[in-house]
């Protein structure tokens, strides 16, 4: 499978399942033309050839057009796990007594997922883990189980896991599967030359209710507050990657004694040696994200990517420091940039930043 952009789009595009119905299009075209001529009252069917392209707007003039797929559409419905004892296939009995455990059988009947972590939740649950015991019908033959999970169309990330065949009794693969977004995740499973698939529902992450805004009323704040700049250690890791793009790990460590929340994108810009901003701030890389709760002494991460100004063909400045605003914070942190870091100084952004997540990018 090719990796270049053209190849990717060719792989993603669908091919026609039938030939073009040109005759049908022609007669429909004639009807459309007759209808239009009738409306405009022209007596003749001749259309004068014009050299300009018809005035049809491909894109709206309104620059706030919503994308075709809203980023936060409601999670698709998914079958709930069953707790009945009579719908587990007989061949799964080799895995021992699992009566009373919530489970789900794949549509092809070859895999049963016993969900010890019921209900499954998005994010990385702290109190209770997303444990799933996969029991397969066909023998493992010592081969691992390759799991991929996707959530079309809400989240384009692919969650992968690989479970070795070391457990017993029975043809079982114990696993803990975390996904970033709630919804009906589609799992494909492959082991020892066999394939199966099934959907598992993940509920919302264990984030508490939104915090109350600071008011003078006696309202009590519900759930953790946003992490404050001054109570965090914010650092930027060493450069990663090839000459065209350089990736940096921004780390946010919670130095306070209370759990706090980092939700969404940090604000990132580059300052030159005199403290002046170079160009414009980095853009937010559009992707689905969930709030990250950061326990005391725990760390959250955001990926920062800068473009090589020579490749992007823009005038360059040398960054001395990186200014970072944690999400929803008005107080910035300043971190020294790696020596000689060149970034775009013009109107095109010097790079992009991903939303804050709970696992390191590098």
């Amino acid at each position, binding site marked *: 499978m090719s990796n270049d952009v053209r190849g*990717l*789009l060719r792989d993603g595009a*669908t091919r026609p399942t039938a030939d073009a119905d040109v005759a049908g*299009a022609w007669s429909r075209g004639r009807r459309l033309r007759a209808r239009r001529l009738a409306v405009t009252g022209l007596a003749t069917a001749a259309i004068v050839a014009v050299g300009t392209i018809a005035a049809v707007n491909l894109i709206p003039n309104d620059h706030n057009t919503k994308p*075709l797929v809203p980023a936060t559409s409601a999670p698709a419905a998914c079958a709930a796990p069953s707790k009945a004892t009579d719908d587990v296939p007989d061949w799964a009995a080799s895995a021992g007594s699992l009566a009373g455990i919530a489970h789900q059988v794949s549509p092809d009947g070859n895999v049963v997922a016993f969900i010890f972590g019921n209900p499954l939740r998005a994010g990385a649950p702290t109190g209770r883990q997303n444990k799933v015991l996969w029991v397969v019908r066909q023998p493992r033959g010592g081969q691992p189980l390759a799991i991929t999970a996707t959530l079309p169309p809400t989240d384009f990330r692919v969650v992968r896991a690989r479970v070795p065949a070391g457990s017993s009794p029975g043809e079982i693969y114990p696993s803990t599967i975390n996904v970033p977004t709630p919804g009906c995740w589609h799992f494909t499973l492959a082991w020892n030359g066999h394939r199966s698939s099934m959907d598992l529902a993940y509920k919302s992450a264990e984030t508490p209710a939104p915090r109350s805004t600071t008011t003078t009323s006696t309202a009590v704040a519900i759930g953790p507050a946003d992490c404050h700049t001054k109570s965090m250690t914010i650092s930027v890791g060493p450069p990663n990657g090839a000459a065209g793009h350089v990736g940096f790990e921004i780390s946010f460590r919670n130095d306070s004694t209370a759990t706090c929340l980092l939700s969404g994108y940090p604000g990132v810009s580059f300052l030159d040696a005199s403290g002046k901003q170079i160009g414009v701030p980095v853009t937010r890389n559009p992707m689905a994200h969930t709030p990250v709760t950061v326990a005391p002494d725990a760390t959250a991460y955001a990926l920062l990517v800068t473009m090589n100004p020579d490749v992007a063909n823009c005038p360059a400045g040398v960054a001395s420091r990186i200014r970072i605003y944690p999400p929803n914070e008005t107080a910035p942190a300043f971190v020294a940039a790696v020596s000689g870091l060149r970034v775009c100084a013009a109107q095109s952004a010097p790079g992009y930043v991903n939303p804050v997540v709970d696992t390191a990018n590098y």
Partner: protein
Amino acid sequence: MSAPEDVNAFCRREWPRLVGSLSLFTGDGDLAQELAQETLARVCRDWHKVSNLDAPGAWAHRVAFNLARSHFRHRAVARRHSARLAAAARNDEPDTTTVIAVRNAVALLPTRQRTALVLRYFADLSVADAAEAMRCPEGTVKTLTRQAILALRSAGLISEAEIEEESMADVE
């Protein structure tokens, strides 16, 4: 009266390109085929005009994308879209994972970025033709394309070396 041979030839040539572009733009293969057929009807309706254009393929793509946008304006979009994509994802073809990832990454792009990416890198329109089809400056087409490619990079679909290559191509 059947279609003239030049109409036949044009439609046969553009059909798979229109179906492919629309499938990437809408995320729905069946819908893409319906819209492509309707696009051909428009091509036939305006053939006298279209046949004289420098870039009739670009015109056809503009009409196709307009029909797609109209379709979504007038229907219950998100629910049908979700259902169809989920249904498509359940076909257990080999390499489904990457194909799904590509389709979803493209579907999540903002409309203008998605349009620029599909016109430039699937329909292979030149920067000038894409700018004409989108009615925006050529620099905007390049910027939108670059942003779209960066998003594909963050989805893990292309490497940095490929971005460098594509950026160079845009610059020339």
